[in-house]
């Protein structure tokens, strides 16, 4: 008979754990199903994109976002687990911000959903700090020598959202149209927001 958890597949271990926890009343199956469904279907980068678009069109909101990312995000209804302390980082023509979590995968869930696989990958986590310019180039983002790259290491306490630069030629767009331009990659800092059609 097996005596070690390693003998079983992660799927079997998870099922056994869930069975024990629900049996003991420590986890409510309905709550569990709701949590999973929410992250699979509802919470995603579109939340952060709406925050960014609002900051682009509303200077007062932008100031509040940079002063207190958590409170400003909550104004649009985005709060909850992993959003307790959100810090917004503003990209400028001379400063580009990149976010990583070197130890695990800390990430602003209420704004961006769960992190993509590359963000959790050991290679990104190690190299983003050591050679950010090269990593960004591999993601297709070539930054000029005049642009300083700042790398921010997330923790269980602080989660970062990059506020990308508003692309040129978008003066006529509505807030909703602007939000549609903002990608997850731009809000983590491995991309910029492109002018539509460019």
């Amino acid at each position, binding site marked *: 008979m*097996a*005596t*070690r*958890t390693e*003998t*079983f597949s*992660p*799927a*079997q*271990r*998870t*099922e*056994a*754990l*869930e*069975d*024990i*926890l*629900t049996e003991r009343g*420590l*986890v*409510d*199956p*309905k*709550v*569990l*199903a709701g*949590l*999973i469904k929410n*992250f*699979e*279907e*509802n*919470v*995603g*980068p*579109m939340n*952060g*994109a709406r925050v960014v678009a609002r900051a682009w069109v509303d200077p007062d909101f932008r100031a509040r976002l940079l002063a207190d990312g958590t409170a400003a995000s909550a104004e649009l209804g985005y709060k909850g*687990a*992993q959003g307790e302390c959100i810090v917004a980082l503003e990209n400028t023509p001379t400063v580009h911000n990149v976010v990583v979590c070197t*130890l*695990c*995968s*800390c990430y602003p869930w209420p704004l961006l*959903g*769960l992190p993509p696989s590359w963000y959790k990958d*050991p290679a990104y986590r190690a190299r983003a700090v050591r050679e950010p310019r090269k990593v960004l180039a591999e993601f297709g983002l070539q930054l000029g020598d005049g642009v300083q790259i700042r790398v921010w290491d997330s*923790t*269980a*306490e602080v989660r970062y959202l990059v506020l990308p630069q508003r692309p040129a030629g978008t003066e006529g767009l509505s807030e909703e*149209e602007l*939000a*549609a*331009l903002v*990608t*997850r990659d731009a809000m983590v800092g491995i991309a910029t927001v492109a002018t*539509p*059609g*460019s």
Partner: protein
Amino acid sequence: MTSPAAALDLQGASAPPRSNGELVFAEPWEGRAFGLALALHETGAFSWKDFSTELAGSIGRWERGHPPGEEYSYYRCWLEALESLLEERGIVDRTATVERAVRLGDRPAGHDHRHDHEHGD
């Protein structure tokens, strides 16, 4: 130049997670393991900082000494962190998990789920 409306259709950011081309969880058990940790945290079983510390430890152990050729699995590290934390806190020890896994594995063929709750709820 494409219109903003076209850009809106193409950009993944405005689409919900499932339809932007990337699965949040590669396998169903990953979602279950994720949900169990979050559900337990929400009931106050542990702080998220404590879980993050355990997760970082689990990831670090894999990075320092994993079997040659073994592919990295974030959610396997996640599950190990959850098992460790539950054992440390005296909530569920690994022996109980193994015993339950054995029991679940002994189910007669065709009974792949022993819960009596309704499916799909």
